[in-house]
C-alpha cells in the first residue's frame, strides 16, 4: 500500500501503518548519525531535570523524525549532495532514550536491536527504511537543508531538512512487526 505521511507525525495515523507499507514522507526531518547521537545522549545524561534534559537537545524531538544521514557536500545550485541512509544499528545504543523522550520516526537502513523494537512499541513509533545506496535519487526529495547544531562535526552535523514525497518502507511498525523478518520468509514461501 502506498501512503502519504506528514511530519511532524500524527501518532494516530502512524498506528495505522504496517510493516511493508510503502510511504512517501513530507515535512521536516532532522539528520543525525553516530557523532551527533553520542553528543545528544551525553548531554541528556548530564542534565538533572526533565526540563534540562529537553533543553539539552538541539531541537524539540517530539513527534519528529531523525534521518540517519551524513550527506556529501552540496555542489553549487544544489540543496544537498548525495543523501541516502546509513546503517541504523549503530544508533541503537542511543535510540530508546530518544524514543522515550518523544522522538517518533527514524529513517535508516538495516536491523535494529530488541531494545529499539521494544521502545518503538512502547511509544507508538515507526522505523522506516530508505534505499541504501540511492543517495543521488533520494537527494531529489530534499527541498531545503540547514545545519542547526554541531557544525564542527562536518557531515555529521544536525541538519533541519524539508522533504517532499521521500520514499520509504515501514520496517518496524508500532506493533513491533519487523519487515526484515517477514519479507524474507514471505518471499521464500512464495517460491515453494
Amino acid at each position, binding site marked *: 500500500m502506498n501512503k502519504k505521511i506528514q511530519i511532524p507525525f500524527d501518532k494516530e495515523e502512524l498506528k495505522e501503518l504496517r510493516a511493508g507499507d510503502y510511504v512517501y514522507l513530507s515535512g521536516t526531518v532532522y539528520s543525525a548519525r553516530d557523532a551527533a547521537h553520542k553528543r545528544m545522549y551525553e548531554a541528556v545524561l548530564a542534565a538533572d531535570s526533565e526540563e534540562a534534559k529537553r533543553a539539552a537537545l538541539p531541537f524539540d524531538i517530539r513527534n519528529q523524525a531523525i534521518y540517519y544521514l551524513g550527506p556529501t557536500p552540496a555542489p553549487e545550485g544544489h540543496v544537498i549532495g*548525495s543523501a541516502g541512509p546509513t546503517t541504523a544499528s549503530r544508533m541503537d545504543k542511543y535510540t530508546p532514550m530518544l524514543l522515550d523522550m518523544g522522538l517518533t520516526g527514524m529513517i535508516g537502513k538495516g536491523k535494529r536491536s530488541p531494545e529499539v523494537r521494544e521502545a518503538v512499541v512502547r511509544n507508538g513509533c515507526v522505523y522506516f527504511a530508505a*534505499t541504501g545506496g540511492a543517495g543521488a535519487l533520494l537527494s531529489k526529495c530534499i527541498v531545503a537543508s540547514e545545519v542547526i547544531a554541531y557544525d564542527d562535526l562536518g557531515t555529521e552535523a544536525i541538519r533541519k531538512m524539508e522533504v517532499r514525497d521521500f520514499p520509504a518502507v515501514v520496517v518496524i511498525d508500532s506493533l513491533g512487526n519487523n*519487515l526484515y523478518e517477514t519479507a524474507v520468509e514471505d518471499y521464500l514461501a512464495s517460491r515453494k
Partner: protein
Amino acid sequence: MRNIHTDVITEAVKKMCIEANLALAPDMEACIRHAAEVEDGALGKKILDSLIENMEIAKEESIPICQDTGMAVFFVEVGQDLHIEGAGLTEAINEGVRHGYRDGYLRKSVVADPLLRTNTGDNTPAIIHYDIVPGDALTITIAPKGFGSENMSKVYMLKPADGEEGIRASVLDAVKNAGPNACPPLFVGVGLGGDFELAAKLAKKALTRDADSRHPDAHIAKLEDEILDLINQTGIGPGGLGGKTTALSVKIETYPTHIAGMPLAVNMCCHVNRHRSVTL
C-alpha cells in the same frame, strides 16, 4: 630508466576519486540492470529499479551514487625500473585524494584517531597497498570503500579439514549476518589462504575484479559460482526486503598457505562497488 613526476600521479588520483564516485564501472552497472530484469521479489524489484534510476541521476547531475564516498583504498603496482621524482609517492596519492574529495564534492569520512574521532577534513589518509612488480609502469587502482558493508566483513581462521564445505558455510554465515545492513545486493570479496592479514587484503582485492570475470583456476571458479547460488537462495534480496538477488557476484582470490591452516576473509561490499584503474 623511466621517470615520472608525482604531480602526474596526484592529478590522476584526483580524477579517479571523482570518477569512481560519480559512476559505476560498466561491468557493475550491467550487473545491476540484469538483476532488475530477473528479480521476482516485489519489494526487491522496486529497490533494484530505484538503484537504476539512482545511477542515472548520479551521472546526469554529477552527484555521488552514494553519500558514503568511502575511505580511499588503493592497490598500487610500482615497476621496479621506474623512477619517481617530486614528492613522496604516498604523499602524492594523499594529495590527489585531498583534491578529489574537495573538488568532487565528496564526503570526508575519515577520523584521525579511532577513539578521539576528529574528522581529518580531507578524507586522508588513504589506505595504500603497494606491490613491487617487474617493468617500469605504475598502475594505480582505487576502490573507495563504504563502511556500512565494511562493518559486516569477517575473518575466519579455518582449518584444512574444514575444506570447501567450511568455506561455503562461512561465507554464507557472513552474508546472513550482514543481512540488510550491507545494502544488498552485495558484491562479496573472499580471500582464501595466506595468513591472517593477507587473507583480508586478498578479499579486498577480489572486489576490484570485473563483475564478469572468472577465476582462472577451474576449482575456484566453480566455488565462486556455488557460493553465489547459495547466497541467492537465502531470499534476503535487494535491500533485505526479499528476492532472488542477495548478491551480484562472489570473487575469490587465493594465496599459498601454511600446512596447518586455511584462513578465509570475507570483505562485504554493497552494490556500490566502485573501482577504477590507471596505468601511468
